[in-house]
């Protein structure tokens, strides 16, 4: 009697434990991170094996692990260059396109004096807070509020606030996209860094309304669309949009834009020093 009193509960618990253990074993096999391990091996095979650490990791194995587990970029190997980048991208199943350098860009140039304020904002110094009050104090409801939520979140301090507008210092920007996520106005766009011709306005309202509040905004005159030889510019409502992959940075649209909304983004060395 005494013995069964012990054996029965012990076998219940033991049996359940065994059952769940087996179940877990099956599940962990099914969702194993083992498939990741294979990819690590594959990438190690593709890498040159020089262990030069130019990618910023301690060696080829560390880089391969980082690509798989931490989502490190596939184009960091400067020894193997594009051939290796392409192979790694294939293994990871990402487009080789996405390995090109992206940069954040603030699609607003409503500096102080160029656009006006609806009201004087005296609350918490944060774009998110300000944007909750009638969409912010800027007269333009698409405009940068300039409290620098993006600058605060940037791990590389690549964003500075100049005369009330956030500016990305593109040579420093690593293209992580944290600022684009943070911006309550969603006017920070991730662009390929090679495309330096940019519409610095996000306001899709009618031209009259835009001109009323900002002397730098896109008024939708479509002159740039007509002048572009590559068909890279389209109108989204009354806002010009440049397709960065078609644009050849010829600069004709920059010349023709009556409001100087389309700009060639350049960063001379002196700009970087100021930062």
């Amino acid at each position, binding site marked *: 009697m005494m013995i069964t009193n012990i054996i029965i509960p012990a076998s*219940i618990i033991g049996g*359940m*434990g065994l059952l*769940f253990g087996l179940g877990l074993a099956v*599940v962990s096999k099914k969702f194993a991170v083992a498939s990741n391990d294979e990819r690590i091996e594959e990438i190690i095979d593709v890498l040159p094996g020089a262990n030069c650490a130019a990618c910023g990791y301690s060696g080829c194995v560390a880089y391969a692990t980082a690509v798989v587990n931490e989502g490190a970029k596939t184009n960091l190997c400067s020894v193997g260059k594009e051939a290796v980048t392409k192979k790694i991208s294939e293994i990871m199943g990402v487009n080789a396109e996405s390995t090109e350098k992206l940069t954040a860009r603030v699609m607003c140039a409503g500096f102080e004096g160029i656009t006006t304020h609806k009201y004087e904002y005296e609350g*918490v110094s944060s774009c998110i807070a300000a944007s909750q009050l009638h969409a912010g104090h800027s007269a333009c409801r698409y405009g940068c509020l300039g409290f620098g939520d993006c600058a605060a979140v940037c791990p590389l301090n690549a964003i500075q606030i100049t005369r009330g507008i956030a500016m990305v210092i593109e040579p420093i920007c690593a293209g992580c996209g944290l600022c684009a996520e943070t911006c309550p106005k969603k006017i920070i766009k991730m662009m390929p860094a090679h495309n330096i011709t940019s519409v610095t306005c996000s306001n899709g309202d009618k031209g009259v309304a835009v001109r009323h509040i900002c002397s730098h905004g896109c008024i939708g005159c479509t002159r740039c669309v007509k002048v572009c030889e590559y068909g890279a510019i389209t109108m989204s409502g009354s806002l010009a949009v440049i397709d960065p992959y078609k644009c050849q940075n010829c600069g004709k649209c920059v010349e023709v834009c009556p409001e100087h909304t389309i700009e060639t983004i350049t960063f001379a060395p002196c700009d970087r020093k100021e930062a």
Partner: protein
Amino acid sequence: MKDIIIIVFATIFVENFVLSKFLGICSFLGVSKNLSDSIGMSGAVVFVMTIASAVTWLVQEYILDPLSMQYLQTITFILVIAALVQVVEIFMKKSLPRLYKALGIYLPLITTNCAVLAVAILNIQRDYTFLESIVFGFSGGVSYMVALVIFAGIRERLELCDIPECFKGFPISLVAAAFVSLAFMGFSGLFAG
């Protein structure tokens, strides 16, 4: 059918697991810092609670009761819950690594989340049928979700407020939690009749 509907609404509003029964407070305060994480966490809790209700009910009915081993209830239920949490963890590690990282220690802590054990034990104490216990488990999870999401929203706003230095962080969160809980007391008596 009427019983089922009453269980759903009574559990979510009147007997809210977090705000009226004060169960699962640890993760309630720990994971409510931002909205998307809190939704992920409560999704995991809903899953664990629902499945745990079903499995523990079967264990009680077909193993513990026939052998009159009711005193093993707590330990077997925790065994079931632990196994389920492990499944969720393995799944999340593979499919939702960002959420997995954000939840951190709170994910394995669902094992010791008293709300989950409470669902399992209350099912037995209240003599629910199999279907009723599944519904109770699910709506218990949803009640946790409601509390967590409301509170995460409040905390996101609190971040932006000008709070006296001594109240910053947990103190003001606890005060806010108390107010939310008081608000939910307004639901009591909803199903008295």
